[in-house]
């Protein structure tokens, strides 16, 4: 208990850090993931190839390596001196985008063929079909897997702490460097993460119920 009370400001910063990196990289992952999923189902071969390469590469790269790339290679290409928070969110967001893409793509595959055929027969274009008929229906099937993807993202954000982003793992490291017993520190950090992941699963359950529809 003392570990928490004596170091509460640092813990609070760490918790806020975990929440903010989770939120920022979730947004990046969601936007990129849906975009790449669109690429992967599009009628244009080069875009499909790009989407497949993207997913295959990112899914088979350890996240730690991706963080290394973002902290040592990307600043050389983009702007030197980007903030660790931004670099960490980008690494995490890109990594997760490949999982989001696969979830969205399999969601698209669950929409009955007749829906797309009907949309086409009234003259809708590819992007209209995708936007107005397929994606709204796919969203419902995609919500449960997305929920676990974002929970995984929250847990993966711990790695950002090792790359000098302020978040809960950083607090754990700080406390063990200061010589506190690791067991209570572990318990508090674990509780911090549990709060975030429970919030995410609750939010998604709410979404699922709101979007439920008789089929």
């Amino acid at each position, binding site marked *: 208990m003392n570990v928490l009370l004596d170091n509460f400001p640092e813990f609070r910063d760490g918790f806020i850090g975990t929440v903010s990196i989770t939120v920022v990289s979730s947004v990046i992952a969601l936007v990129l993931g849906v975009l790449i999923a669109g690429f992967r189902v599009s009628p*244009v071969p080069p875009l499909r190839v790009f989407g497949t390469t993207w997913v295959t590469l990112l899914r088979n790269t350890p996240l730690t390596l991706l963080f290394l790339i973002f902290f040592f290679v990307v600043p050389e290409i983009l702007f030197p001196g980007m903030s660790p928070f931004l670099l960490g969110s980008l690494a995490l967001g890109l990594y997760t985008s490949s999982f989001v893409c*696969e979830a969205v793509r399999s969601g698209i595959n669950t929409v009955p063929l007749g829906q797309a055929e009907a949309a086409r027969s009234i003259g809708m274009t590819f992007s209209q079909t995708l936007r107005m008929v397929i994606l709204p229906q796919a969203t419902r099937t995609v919500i449960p897997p997305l929920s676990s993807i974002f929970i995984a993202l929250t847990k993966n954000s711990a790695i950002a702490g090792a790359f000098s982003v302020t978040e809960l793992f950083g607090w754990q490291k700080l406390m063990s460097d200061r010589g506190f017993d690791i067991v209570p520190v572990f318990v508090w950090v674990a509780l911090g993460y549990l709060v975030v992941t429970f919030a995410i699963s609750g939010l998604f359950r709410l979404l699922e119920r709101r979007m439920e529809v008789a089929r």
Partner: protein
Amino acid sequence: MSASVLYDAPGPKAVVRNRVYAVVGSLAIVALLVVGVMRLADKGHLAPEMWDIFNYSGIRQNIADGVLATLKVFGLAVVGSLLLGVVLAIGRLSDHRPVRWLATAFIELFRSIPLLITIYAIWVGFLTDYSMWALAAGLSVYNGCVQAEVLRAGINSVPKGQSEAAYALGMSKTQVMVGVLIPQAVRAMLPTIISQLVVTLKDTSLGYIILYPELLNTARLIASNTLVNGQYPYVSTIVVVGVVYVAMCLLLSALATWIEKRGRRAKTGIVMADATPPAEMADVIDAPGDR
């Protein structure tokens, strides 16, 4: 195929339009790549000297050692996580309520805590001088929990008649579990189990953070101890090590897909699971029911 759901076979107009999109899209992608490569070349990261370092036997030896260390910890984690997975899965299906609760609590707890946190706590708290064992233990605990859920889903997917028949023959519960249910569950879930092993392999790179000299840590050491043209060769080492990682993971994924295809051919009446990893975890329980 998913593609044909969304669009008809293109007519002449659509063919032209798709070609335009294809050209514009490829140009945009190529332009992005070229800009990236040019920026790297500007900073001298692509100079031949930067890549020459991989011709030195010392550096090659370092990388080989790193791969070996990674594979060593991966092997330990595979054995550990599968053993723990079987034990936990049996625990979750036990007839005794306390055993069931204990197994469930253990699985839920360690599955919802970031793996890095667990590994770090084990390392600092118990195995400070044995980073390999700390890493292996952390990986085993986390992946064991995931494998347990996979196995449980597999055991539940075995047709009920199988265990009924086994009981009717007078087999004990242990015999039914070990002799009838688990072999079929493993067979059905093999693709998912191997896909989870890919996740385990990727996660060995967390050894980087507890200073275990696996491949990624080796790469960092190489890059930060070699000075070429007044720069550290981060870009070239990361590229080389990245290729090694992706190759290892792709090999394992290919194995999973191959087994899945083989399993679909066999007519056993047991549905094979998909080879796609269950989004890293969590939804393994729902996965088989979704189809």
